[in-house]
C-alpha cells in the first residue's frame, strides 16, 4: 500500500465536494475529494497537488498521475471548458513530470466569477473509494500547498 498527501492547488477556503455547484463533482461520480473556493485577489497560479506526470492538461483542468498510477484531477472552476482557454496561462506541457507544488496554470478566479461561472476548484482522487481518503481538511481557509487529504491505496 502507498499513502501520499494531496495538496491544495490554490489558496482559498476548503469546502465539501458535495457543495460544488455541479452534479458530477457533487455526487463524486469521478471520485471523492474536496474543493477549494479560491481567493478572488487577482491572478493565482494553480500548483500540482501531487508529484507525477501530467497525463491530461487542459487550460481549465489537469490530471497528475503518480508513479503508481493514482490520478488526481484539479478542475479550475465549473463549466470553464466554455472559456476555451481564455484567461488561462499554462506553465507546463502535457506529459511533463512535475513535483508537488509545481506551477501548472495561472488564472484569475475573479474573472471566472465575472463571466457568470463558479470559480470553485474540485480536487478529486480519480476512481478512489471514499474509504481510501483520510485526514480530510475541515472547511476553512487553506494556502496553496496545504494538505487537503491523504490517499492510501
Amino acid at each position, binding site marked *: 500500500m502507498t499513502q501520499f498527501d494531496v495538496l491544495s492547488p490554490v489558496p482559498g477556503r476548503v469546502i465539501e465536494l458535495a457543495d460544488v455547484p455541479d*452534479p*458530477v*463533482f457533487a*455526487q463524486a*461520480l*469521478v471520485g471523492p475529494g474536496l474543493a477549494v473556493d479560491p481567493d478572488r485577489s487577482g491572478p493565482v497560479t494553480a500548483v500540482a497537488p501531487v508529484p507525477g506526470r501530467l*497525463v*491530461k492538461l*487542459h487550460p*481549465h*483542468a489537469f*490530471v497528475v498521475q503518480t508513479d503508481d498510477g493514482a*490520478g488526481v*484531477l484539479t*478542475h479550475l472552476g465549473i463549466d470553464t*471548458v466554455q472559456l476555451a482557454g481564455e484567461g488561462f496561462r499554462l506553465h507546463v506541457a502535457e506529459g511533463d513530470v512535475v513535483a508537488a507544488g509545481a506551477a501548472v496554470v495561472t488564472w484569475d478566479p475573479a474573472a471566472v466569477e465575472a463571466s457568470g461561472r463558479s470559480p470553485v476548484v474540485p480536487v478529486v482522487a*480519480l*476512481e478512489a473509494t471514499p474509504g481510501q481518503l483520510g485526514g480530510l481538511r475541515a472547511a476553512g481557509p487553506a494556502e496553496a500547498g496545504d494538505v487537503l487529504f491523504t490517499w492510501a491505496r
Partner: protein
Amino acid sequence: MDKAEQILKALGGAGNIVEIEPCATRLRTEVHDAALVDEKALKAAGAFGVISAGQVVQVVVGPEADTIATDIEDLM
C-alpha cells in the same frame, strides 16, 4: 465494439447526435430525442454516471473524455 462505439449506440446512434463536446470529466452531448438514450447501456459501456436535462445528456467517463469524443467523431 469498443467504448466509443458502445457509447454512440447508447446515445441513439450518430443520427441522434446534435453535438458532442468533451470536458475534463464528461462528454456533453446534445441529442435530438432524449428517449433514444439508453442510460443502462451507457453505464455498461463504462460511464460512471449519466446526467440528463432535456436534450442535454452528460456522460461521465472521466479524464479520457477527450479521447473518446475524438473516437466518436471518427465514427460519425
